[in-house]
C-alpha cells in the first residue's frame, strides 16, 4: 500500500468519503481491540473470581458436577469456620507487622545509601556500590539457608524479627534511589545549601528527602508487597502456629489430614480482598515503582 505525499489541497468529496471510511475502520479496529483486551482482562481475573465464589459455597456444592461459578445458595459458614479454627487474623497481623517493618527498613537504608552513592562520588563508595549491585542478582533462595542459621543464633526464629532479617535491605531499592538522586537533585541546590552553612544531615533531611518523596513512595509500595507475598523465607523461619505469616498459614492449612476446599477458599479470599484493594488504591505508586525496575540503563 502506498500513499501519496501530503499536499494541501481542498479535499474532494471522494477524499472526504475516504476519511469517513478510514475513521470507521479505525473505530472498528479499536472496538475489536477493546473486545480482545476485555476478554484477556476477564481471563486474568477469573481465577480470583472463582476463589471468592468458592468461599461462599456449601460443602455439597463444592463437590457437585459440573462446577458452578456463582454459588447457588451462598453461605458464610466457611468464613466463620476458618476464623474459628485458625488464628487467621493473627497470621494477617504477623504479615502486616513484617511487611510494614521491612518497608521502613528498606526505605530508610535505600534513602541514605542511594543519596550517598548518588552524590558523593568517592572511589571507596563507587566500589561499595558495585558490590551492592553485584549481589542484587544473587537470588534470595541461594543464601537463605545460611541466613537461617544466623537467625537461629540470634534466637529470633519464630518471630517477626526473624522474618525481618531476610528483608532488611534491598539492593534494587538503593539503585532506584541513586538513579533518582542523580536525575532529580541538582548539585547546585546542595552546594547552595552548603554555602548557606547547612549541615550535611540537615541537607539530607530537609532538601533531599522531600525531593525523593515520589521515588520513596514507589519503593515503599514495592517493598511492602515483596514482604507481603514472601513465601520461602517465612516458610523456614516460622514453625509455630502463632508465628506464621498468612502465606505460610494458608499453605500449611491444607497439609492436615483432610482438605476442605471451601474453607481454604474462604481463608484465601479473606487475604486476597484486602491486598487487592490496597493495590488498587496504591496502583499509581506501584506501577511507577515496578516500571522503574525496567529502566536499568
Amino acid at each position, binding site marked *: 500500500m502506498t500513499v501519496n505525499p501530503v499536499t494541501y489541497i481542498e479535499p474532494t468529496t471522494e477524499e472526504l468519503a475516504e476519511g469517513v471510511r478510514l475513521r470507521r475502520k479505525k473505530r472498528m479496529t479499536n472496538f475489536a*481491540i477493546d473486545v480482545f483486551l476485555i476478554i484477556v482482562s476477564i481471563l486474568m481475573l477469573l481465577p480470583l473470581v472463582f*476463589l471468592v465464589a468458592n468461599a461462599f459455597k456449601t460443602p455439597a456444592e*463444592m463437590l457437585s458436577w459440573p462446577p458452578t461459578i456463582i454459588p447457588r445458595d451462598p453461605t458464610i459458614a466457611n468464613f466463620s469456620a476458618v476464623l474459628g479454627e485458625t488464628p487467621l487474623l493473627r497470621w494477617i497481623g504477623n504479615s502486616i507487622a513484617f511487611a510494614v517493618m521491612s518497608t521502613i527498613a528498606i526505605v530508610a537504608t535505600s534513602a541514605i545509601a542511594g543519596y550517598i552513592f548518588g552524590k558523593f562520588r568517592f572511589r571507596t563508595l563507587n566500589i561499595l556500590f558495585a558490590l551492592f549491585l553485584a549481589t542484587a542478582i544473587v537470588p534470595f533462595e541461594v543464601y537463605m539457608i545460611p541466613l537461617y542459621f544466623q537467625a537461629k543464633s540470634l534466637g529470633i526464629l519464630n518471630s517477626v524479627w526473624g522474618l525481618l532479617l531476610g528483608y532488611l535491605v534491598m539492593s534494587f531499592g538503593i539503585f532506584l534511589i541513586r538513579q533518582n538522586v542523580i536525575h532529580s537533585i541538582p548539585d547546585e541546590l546542595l552546594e547552595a545549601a552548603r554555602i548557606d552553612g547547612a549541615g550535611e544531615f540537615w541537607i539530607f533531611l530537609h532538601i533531599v528527602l522531600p525531593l525523593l518523596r515520589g521515588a520513596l513512595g514507589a519503593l515503599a509500595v514495592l517493598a511492602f508487597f515483596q514482604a507481603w507475598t514472601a513465601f520461602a523465607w517465612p516458610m523456614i523461619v516460622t514453625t509455630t502456629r502463632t508465628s506464621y505469616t498468612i502465606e505460610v498459614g494458608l499453605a500449611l492449612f491444607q497439609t492436615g489430614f483432610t482438605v476442605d476446599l471451601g474453607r481454604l*477458599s474462604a481463608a484465601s479470599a479473606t487475604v*486476597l480482598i484486602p491486598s487487592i484493594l490496597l493495590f488498587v488504591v496504591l496502583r499509581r505508586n506501584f506501577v511507577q515503582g515496578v516500571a522503574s525496575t*525496567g529502566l536499568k540503563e
Partner: protein
Amino acid sequence: MLKRKRWIFAILAILPTLALFAYVRLYPIADTLRLSLFKWDILSKNKPFVGLANFRELTGDHLFIDALVNTTIIAFGVLILTIPMALIIAALIFHRTRSRMAGFYETAVFIPHVVSLVPAAMAWKWIFDARLGPLNALLTFFGIPAQSWLFDPVLSVICIIILCSWQALGYAVLIYIVGFKNLPVSLYEAAKLDGASGPQSFWYLSIPMLKPITLYVSVVTLVSGFNVYAQAFVLASDAQGAPGRQVRVLVLDMLENSFRNYRVGYAASEAVVLLVIVLGLTLIQFSMLRERGKV
C-alpha cells in the same frame, strides 16, 4: 578539608547500611559457598571438609537432575508463553492509552502479579482439579476427554508453567508499556506517512526498538522461573485427601535436602549451581546489551 569532611560524613552515613548489608547478604552468600564444600549435616557433630564431593554427588543424583530439568523447562516455558503475549497485550493497551478502559486493563493484567501466591495457587488448584475443576468441565463440554492435570507427569509441569505465566505476565506487560511510552513518536508518524499499517510498524519498528526491554524482561522472567518453589509446593502439597504429583524443582529439592535430610552442605552445593545458572543468564544479558551498544 571540606572534601575530607564530606567523605567522613558519607562513610559514617553509609556505615550502618553497609554493616547490615554485610550481615544479611554478603556473609550468607559467602557461607553458602563455604558450606557447599563441607559434609555439613545439622545433626552430626563432625562436619568435615569434603572438597567437591557434594558436586560430584549432584551429577549422579537423579532427584537433583529431575529438579534441574523440571526447573529449566518451567523457566523457559514461562518465558516462551509470557514474552510474546506480554508484547502484544502491551502494544494493544498502549494503543488504547487514551481510552477510559486503559486503567482497567492495566490493573486486571497486573493484579495476578501482586496477589499473594498461595491463595492464587489455591484458585488454580481448583481449576485444574481432575474431578471438580472447571477446566475439565469446559473440556468435556467440547467433547474433549477430561485430563488429570495435576497428576500426569507432563501436564503437571504445564500446570505450573501456566500458573507462573499468569503471575509473570502483568510485570512484563507493565515494563513493555513503559517501553512503548518511551519510543519516539516521530518515528511512528514517519512510518505512517510512508504507509505502514499498525501491525507493520509494530513488527518492523516496535519489536526491534524494544529489544533491550525484551532482553531485560526475559532475564527477569527466567531468573524468577529458576526460583520457582511456592507454586510447586501448593499445587502438589502433601495433603492426603487430594494430593497432586510432586513436581520437583530446584528450591524444593534444596529445602528438602537441608531440612528433611539435614544435609545442609549438600543443599548449599545445589544453591551454588542455582547461582551459577543465574549468573550465566545475567552475563548473557549484559554481553548482548553491550554488543547492541557497539552496533
